[in-house]
């Protein structure tokens, strides 16, 4: 509670809700305001700031995370509704030895970023895009990556990185 002595304003200060979030393979027991979004839970309470805030309205894609392997916007998910699900963030993408995920390596190799702010969301989205099989053509990649804004306009290189990872995944399978 705040250590202030002014009269508490009439805020809907909710009773904290106990919840367990399973993030990047680990359980985190937390007590959060029921309105807390998964985005705020990750950033403000678990210190996982790799998931970025661009709009908080589901319109930019910067907060894309994985829930049970599917891509979701952490700003549009209540933390409470994400209990008992496998939540994956950019911090959990690299291997335990620190080896980059192939998509991370491809983003580096193709210079698929300029300022880098949208990049964690782009990479999380791109990993899901490949898994969904939406990589049949550059146009399909662009369509299925259109939920992630890149104002620097690095789209050509982002598409190239996704294309490469998809091709390699196909070769392996």
């Amino acid at each position, binding site marked *: 509670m*705040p250590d202030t002595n002014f009269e508490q304003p009439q*805020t809907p200060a909710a009773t904290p809700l106990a919840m367990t979030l399973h993030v990047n393979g680990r359980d985190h027991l937390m007590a959060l305001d029921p309105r807390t979004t998964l985005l705020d839970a990750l950033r403000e309470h678990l210190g996982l700031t790799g998931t970025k805030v*661009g709009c908080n309205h589901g319109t*930019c894609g910067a907060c894309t995370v994985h829930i049970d392997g599917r891509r979701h916007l952490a700003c549009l998910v209540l933390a409470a509704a994400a209990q008992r699900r496998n939540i994956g963030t950019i911090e959990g993408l690299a291997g335990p030895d620190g080896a980059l995920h192939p998509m991370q390596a491809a983003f580096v190799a193709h210079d698929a970023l*300029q300022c880098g702010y*949208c990049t964690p969301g782009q990479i999380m989205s791109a990993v899901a895009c490949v898994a969904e099989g939406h990589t049949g053509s550059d146009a399909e990649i662009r369509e299925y990556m*259109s939920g992630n804004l*890149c104002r620097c*306009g690095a789209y050509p290189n982002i598409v190239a990185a996704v294309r490469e990872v998809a091709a390699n995944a196909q070769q392996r399978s």
Partner: protein
Amino acid sequence: MAAVAATSSAIADAALELIEVKYEILPFVIDVEDAMLPGAPILHDDLFTAGVEPKATTASNIAKRVAFKLGDVDAGFAEADVVVEGYYTTQAVHQAYIEPHACVVTVGSDGQSLIYSSSQGHFMVRAYCAKLLGMELSDIRAMPSEIGGGFGGKTVVYLEPIAMALSKQTGRPVKMVMTREDVFRSTGPTSGGTIAVKLGAKKDGTITAATAVLKFQAGAFPGSPVQPGCMTCFAMYDLKNVTITGYDVVSNRPKVAAYRAPGAPISTFATESAMDELALKLGMDPIALREKNAAKDGTKTAYGVTFQNIGYTQTLEAAKNHPHYTAPLGPNQGRGVASGFWFNIGGESTGAVHVNEDGSVSIVTGSPDIGGSRASMAMMAAEVLGIPVEKVRPVIGDTATIGFTHLTGGSRVTFATGMAVTQAAERVRDDLKKRAAMIWEIPVEAVDWKDGEAVPAGANAGGFDPMPLAAIALKAAKTGGPIIAEVSVNAQGAGPGFATHICDVEVDPETGHTTVLRYTAIQDVGRAIHPSYVEGQIQGGAAQGIGWALNEEYIYDKQGKLDNAGFLDYRVPVASDMPMIEAVMIEVPNPRHPFGAKGVGEVPIVPPMAAVANAIRGAIGIRMPHLPMSPPKLRAAMDAKAG
């Protein structure tokens, strides 16, 4: 003004709701032409138009008038066989960086302050905060956080001084973060404006006279980029008779901030659309018309500078010869060409090079990295020192650890900060030679530096084995101490940037929806230090320009309130809106830079709006003079033409 600090955002929100604000609704004016009319609501009763004769005596929304003149336009129009005139408008657009403004500050009880914020210049942050809070610069230490896009919009402060005042009162660190809506409503977009253009030419395409009148929105306070808008709009051409007049006009909008090549995209949309009209009227190929009038080395601009070492005609040549320019077009498709100019600047920068004890090298600069400049700094230092770039680690120093550096903007960092780093690396290299000479006990003139090693300059120097940088570093203590150099420059001679873009579009004749099919951006980059980053800058500028052309705009409701303060209705291009943008780099080296670099980040946003407009003109046979060229406007124009 009121501000609330709290221990959670929920408490802060609740506290804000308890503050009652009473507003007196005053008459307002949004549009720039309306703001200039007699009888318009006057925003500031102490604002008098600067730059007019006789001196203004009544308050006006026109903050400033600027004018540039060359030759005699009346005589020029009298010589013309063909004249085209047009009136163009553009809307305010936002830089729309994905990272909203944010900061964390601490003001200590002794007044010593620390600012962490994401900006295009932490020395700028320090200066504004010191001035606003009446502090000494040395009491504030501004730390450069990683920056999630700026494009000019983070060259001023919004949150930091408020956070400092709150921190001072509470004695606690204060964090402030803007919402996306805050970003759109309370930070500066760039101006919308109106531009009247008139061009006169002889039958062979020689332009005999050109005039432009620019009226730019400044927002609620003076300071639109109308002056650079005036200076750039005809700079691609060698004109004998030209007048350009600009007005900086206040209206009830957010105060504008810089956006990539401030002013130039607005004015150039008009002048390059007019060039297309002129080509049509003359029956000339648009590139041929531009070649006929192109600025070359020795061309004097209307704003006084005489160009040297410019590469404009080379971009036209490359455009003409590019397969894109002659590729066949289908039904409802059109092709447009447009060019653009940006000054690029130099200015004050500091770079330091430290040779570490293990032979690795650290570089410190004062330039926030908004597009990969750290990599370019490392590459330039590695080149001078003859070592692999992986051995060089570039960092950005805070205001207490590196010398003053002007902000990241004006396409200046690779040029000016790169110059400081290169010179510092050269000093380090000279020092390394000196140290090797001491160890070998030979004169310094007898030592050469080659591939990261000291070598004897010749057979007479002695039979020493090459001594690598790391070996010299290890013995630094014995040869005079740490091997470092810090160089500050006020860099002059930034080479101007020119670009020519080719754009193909297809317009849906029933909905007015424009699809950009193909885009080629050709640019003189001086010398590309990091080619793929340069390509990225070119593609990024073109993408932003295409957004500006087609869908981006500040929309106001009838009450004068911004109606689209979010990414849903402020439509920046998404991946599927963009074609592959091919970047073609022309290299006309800048002799004033050690590696020939010119600024590259800004000029690519200058041509796209006219390139798209000219392509739409080709596709539907209608000139679209008003941005954005959104589907309702196109459909209405097509209906009007059909009658």
